[in-house]
């Protein structure tokens, strides 16, 4: 017994190392395969405050460009509004609408690691929930993963765990949008069958199969495509519309029917 205790005392630092390394490895492997940790993420108060203050300062330097971008979007939306065939009916009762939209600011962005997350400046106090869709003025950005009361983290489309339903515009051929961690400007669309006619430059938009995003949100254009190993599906490189290195203002989309859809899906799976 004395010897065992002596042994442990002699190698106590190695034991300490082993113990701490085990904790770190378990956390790493969990985050590789499952969702982001609920306790250790940058939506927490301290990290959020630090990033928020830094973003308040650095945000001034891109105000002009950001303003221009928002005005451009307004211009496009005005054009749509004035040229729509019949006047869009003004519904005063917003509770009837299927989607609600909230805006927020990105306070931390990352795009160089294989699993990228963004931190945004609104949380559950502003009605942000897990699995809300996130877009910018140009296109799709990601999905809300964790929220605290004032901040949230967003799983970017540039995340090897991301998997979003997307389709080729004006068709019903849909596939999954994934990322291979190589280039932050390019994501991959997989599972498009071989018989689909493709052209470089075709637009990719979000599909109708998801309860997170509304249909037809722009994603990007086809950059190049080839058949996968089994020669029956295409692997398509999609160049994103969004400049992932430079996102400031974002919109969060909430599908009000989502709860109902989820419940229905669960019922169907059970049987």
């Amino acid at each position, binding site marked *: 017994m004395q010897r065992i205790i002596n042994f442990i005392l002699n190698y106590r*630092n190695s034991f*300490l190392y082993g113990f701490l390394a085990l904790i770190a490895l378990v956390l790493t492997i969990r985050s590789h395969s499952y969702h982001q940790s609920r306790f250790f993420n*940058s939506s927490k108060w301290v990290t959020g405050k*630090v990033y928020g203050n830094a973003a308040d300062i650095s945000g001034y330097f891109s105000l002009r460009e950001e303003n221009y971008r928002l005005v451009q979007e307004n211009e496009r939306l005005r054009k749509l509004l004035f040229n729509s065939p019949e006047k869009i009916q003004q519904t005063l009762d917003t509770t009837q609408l299927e989607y609600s939209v909230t805006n927020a600011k990105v306070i931390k962005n990352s795009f*160089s690691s294989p699993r990228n997350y963004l931190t945004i400046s609104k949380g559950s106090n502003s009605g942000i929930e897990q699995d809300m869709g996130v877009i910018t003025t140009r296109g799709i950005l990601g999905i809300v993963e964790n929220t605290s009361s004032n901040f949230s983290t967003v799983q970017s489309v540039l995340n090897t765990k991301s998997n979003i339903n997307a389709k080729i515009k004006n068709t019903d051929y849909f596939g999954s949008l994934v990322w291979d*961690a190589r280039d932050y400007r390019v994501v991959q669309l997989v599972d498009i069958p071989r018989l689909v006619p493709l052209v470089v430059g075709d637009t990719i938009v979000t599909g109708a199969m998801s309860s997170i995003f509304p249909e037809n949100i722009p994603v990007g254009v086809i950059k190049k495509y080839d058949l996968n190993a089994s020669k029956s599906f295409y692997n398509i490189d999609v160049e994103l519309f969004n400049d992932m290195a430079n996102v400031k203002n974002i919109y969060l989309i909430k599908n009000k029917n989502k709860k109902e859809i989820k419940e229905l899906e669960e019922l169907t799976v059970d049987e």
Partner: protein
Amino acid sequence: MNNVVFLNILRFVLLVLTQVLIFNTLNFLDSINPMVYVIFLYWFPIKGNRAVFLLTAFLLGLIIDIFSDTLALHTFATLTSAFIRPLIMRFCFGVNYEFQNFSFKNTTKVQRLTFLGLLILAHHLIFFFLEILSLSHILLILKKFVTTSLVTFFLCAMFSSLFSPKSE
């Protein structure tokens, strides 16, 4: 003694802030984010308690991980580099390092830079392998490893000569 503790706490906080606010958002040439906080392991007193050193390294990595949403990659890499630091020191400074009166002052610049370089290499190698953890990306891993290590080494060498510790 208190002075050393205070100095290290100050270093810890400043390095975390510099890392997460400046170097994590650098994205030099699209993908290079140097991890300069590794220099904490280089600066940490040699004669300090080993267990305290390991725990501090663990905490440092964990905090950086929480900030950058890369759960526990930095932690594991920093902890392991801290654990093998004595080995690297023995390699760089030879038997001298075992003596009581050893200090950085009576080592050559080359020795110190080798020590720093090896620390960074060990840390980055572990980090990038764990980060992607896939053999099909081996070229990407190596590219990131080599470029980031070079930039980190360059920055850390500058930091170490800029803020060289005088009282240790």
